[in-house]
């Protein structure tokens, strides 16, 4: 929680995620910009048809890592107002969101830069794993490379 009343909202859930809820939760009268990232399941991997993903998390550690990301964002971009990070767990169908991040700030460049930092750092440091389940063939645990 930021000192001046900015909210850090973090959710790991098996429920479906909605962009509107995330954007509304970070919108505030003093902010002119809300930046949102939505990660969705792609339907193919190296020619294999992906039917769904299964996500698993080391939940308490994932939450503490996500809190750490929020606090780094507030150090690097002090004007950031609200941060909402939602990550889905369990089965996720193609085109459904696996992660939604919303960040608000008075001016656009801060929330846009913080958004990129947030998703990059989430992928690199938060203990969450996804398994791709294909139309045919063995499921495969993925590895973030970027």
């Amino acid at each position, binding site marked *: 929680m930021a000192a001046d009343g900015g909210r850090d909202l973090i959710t790991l859930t098996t429920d479906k995620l909605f962009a509107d809820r995330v954007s509304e939760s970070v919108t505030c009268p003093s902010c002119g910009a809300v930046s949102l990232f939505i990660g969705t399941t792609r339907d193919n991997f190296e020619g294999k048809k992906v039917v769904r993903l299964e996500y698993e*998390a080391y939940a308490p550690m994932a939450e503490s890592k996500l809190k750490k990301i929020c606090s780094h964002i507030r150090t690097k971009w002090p004007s950031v107002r609200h941060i909402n990070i939602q990550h889905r767990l369990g089965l996720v169908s193609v085109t459904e969101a*696996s992660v939604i991040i919303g960040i608000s700030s008075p001016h656009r460049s801060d929330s846009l830069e913080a958004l990129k930092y947030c998703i990059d750092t*989430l992928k*690199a*440091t938060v203990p969450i*794993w*996804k398994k791709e389940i294909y139309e045919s063939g063995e499921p495969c*645990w993925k590895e*973030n490379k970027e």
Partner: protein
Amino acid sequence: MNTEVSVLYFAKSAELTGLKAEIITVPSNISSVQLWQDLENRHPRLSVLRGKVVLAVRQEFVSLCEQPLSLRDGDELAIIPPLSGG
């Protein structure tokens, strides 16, 4: 001196061991490399992950190295295969 710690398995490591968690007894000054070797001895199929995993000790990442972990009774360890969140 020995300590009793819990080990959590995630993703592929859980599939390979067939376990979500177990309680093991190890020397409190064991290094992360030795601990991984100990787990491989218990669960030989884990060897496919050798060189690819890190540990989490009390929810902090620890690379595999020779430094003693200073474990205490009840500590929570976790096997962390390559991350793929997002």
